[in-house]
């Protein structure tokens, strides 16, 4: 069953690879704009060999992880606070609704205006994008704690801060982790857009710059790299999430 499922997954990707190879070669699509996969992979290997790819990947990962890490460090405490203090939640809720429904990239020009074209604005926009799912999930996690568990702990005369530490926090961990996993995906998505504006390195820059200079092969190589990177990041976070929520298996 597992094997079959695995085969099917590989099958779909193989199919995509074959289509990508065949369509340009048979002339169904213009190979100037979509070169065959094998040529793209050769370009990828060349980029890797010169070390250029590594430089861009490092630049990208650095930004992405910085924004992502800062988002975790800021959004979790803030989310716990908002989830715990009802009046604060009531006060902030309209604001949260407004911002969560504003497309992140619409704010990119604002970030650039305020923080300049350098690293600060790039990391800031990633931080901003990644903070939302963590913040909202943390709030939902705290709010969603089974009232009976709170009642049970309260009946033991547990003071508020220990109730928080011993019940609210552990109970919300799985929900918070879902937010972290989503944030990981967001931080990769926004990264590319951020690097298309005023960057001198990074995979987003590579893709954009290659397209500009008609290095179509390199452009696709960059795209493949970033999608593999995103995939790996997600797999890593998903396995972490599973590890922290085993107890939620059947409740």
């Amino acid at each position: 069953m597992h094997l079959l499922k695995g085969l099917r997954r590989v099958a779909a990707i193989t199919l995509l690879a074959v289509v990508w190879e065949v369509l340009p070669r048979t002339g169904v699509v213009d190979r100037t704009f979509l070169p065959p996969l094998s040529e793209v992979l050769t370009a990828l290997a060349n980029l890797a060999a010169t070390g250029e790819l590594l430089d861009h990947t490092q630049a990208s990962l650095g930004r992405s992880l910085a924004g992502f890490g800062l988002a975790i460090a800021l959004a979790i405490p803030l989310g716990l606070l908002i989830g715990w203090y009802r009046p604060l939640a009531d006060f902030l809720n309209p604001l949260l609704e407004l911002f969560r429904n504003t497309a992140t990239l619409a704010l990119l020009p604002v970030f650039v205006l305020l923080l300049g074209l350098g690293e600060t604005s790039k990391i800031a926009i990633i931080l901003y994008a990644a903070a939302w799912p963590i913040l909202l999930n943390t709030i939902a996690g705290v709010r969603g704690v089974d009232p009976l568990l709170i009642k049970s702990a309260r009946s033991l005369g547990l003071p508020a801060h220990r109730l928080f530490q011993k019940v609210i926090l552990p109970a919300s961990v799985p929900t918070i982790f879902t937010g972290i996993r989503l944030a990981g995906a967001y931080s990769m998505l926004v990264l590319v857009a951020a690097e298309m504006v005023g960057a001198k390195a990074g995979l987003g820059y590579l893709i954009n710059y290659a397209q500009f200079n008609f290095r179509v092969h390199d452009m696709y190589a960059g795209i493949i790299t970033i999608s593999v990177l995103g995939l790996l990041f997600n797999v890593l976070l998903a396995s972490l999430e599973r590890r922290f929520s085993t107890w939620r298996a059947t409740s």
Partner: protein
Amino acid sequence: MTAKISIRGVTKDFSVRDHDEPFTALHDIHLDVRTGEFLTLVGPSGCGKSTLLDLLAGLTAPTHGEILLDGVPIEGPGLDRGIVFQQYALFPWRTALANVEFGLEAKDTKKRERRERARHFLDLVGLSGFAERYPHELSGGMRQRVAIARSLAFDPDVLLMDEPFAALDAQTRETLQEELLRIWEKTQKTVVFITHGIDEAVYLGQRVAVMTSRPGRIKHVLDVEFEAREGDLRADARFGDYRHVVWTLLRDEVAAARQEAPVG
């Protein structure tokens, strides 16, 4: 015997949204629970049984009247009372053992002693082999055993039980009832046990307090006396008599409760 818990003229009102009139859940309750006694409390659904338990637990305060524990008014929750809920209320991220330790952590017991005591009480409820299991890996009956062990572990004087066996199948329920009696005899706790089951109330209680439908009052307190609490108590002729008395007391109340729109 002296009164462990003394409920004096307790009334509990709740304010209801969109209503000027408060909702009276309990009205002028008078009841004494003796030290070391097993008292069961039966009443039709919605009669305020659980509200009374919340008051005893100190989770809410009465609107009028007072509840004394060892002669001192209850002013909040505390480790002198342990609660067992119908839905177990186990912490799903903790193992059975760690769940039992919870109350001891609240009491700031040292880790070693915590472990030891928790193991002792898991043993008492017959779950020695399941210490490292998580709640979702245990059956309903086992979860309730863990919950009972958790409430016993921090050594409260009073055990408050809110329909603890209502969610279990008949066979598991009977087993746990027997075990609860065994544990009660062994630990000498004062037990207040809420149920809507007449059989359960008569089987477990030394006294059965029957409540009226909303607003809840104590209608009657029945002394249940058997020659010996051994063997098949339910087959005892007097079991049937007691059962019938409680049934008759409850019948009118259940009918009255049906007349009302279900609230709470």
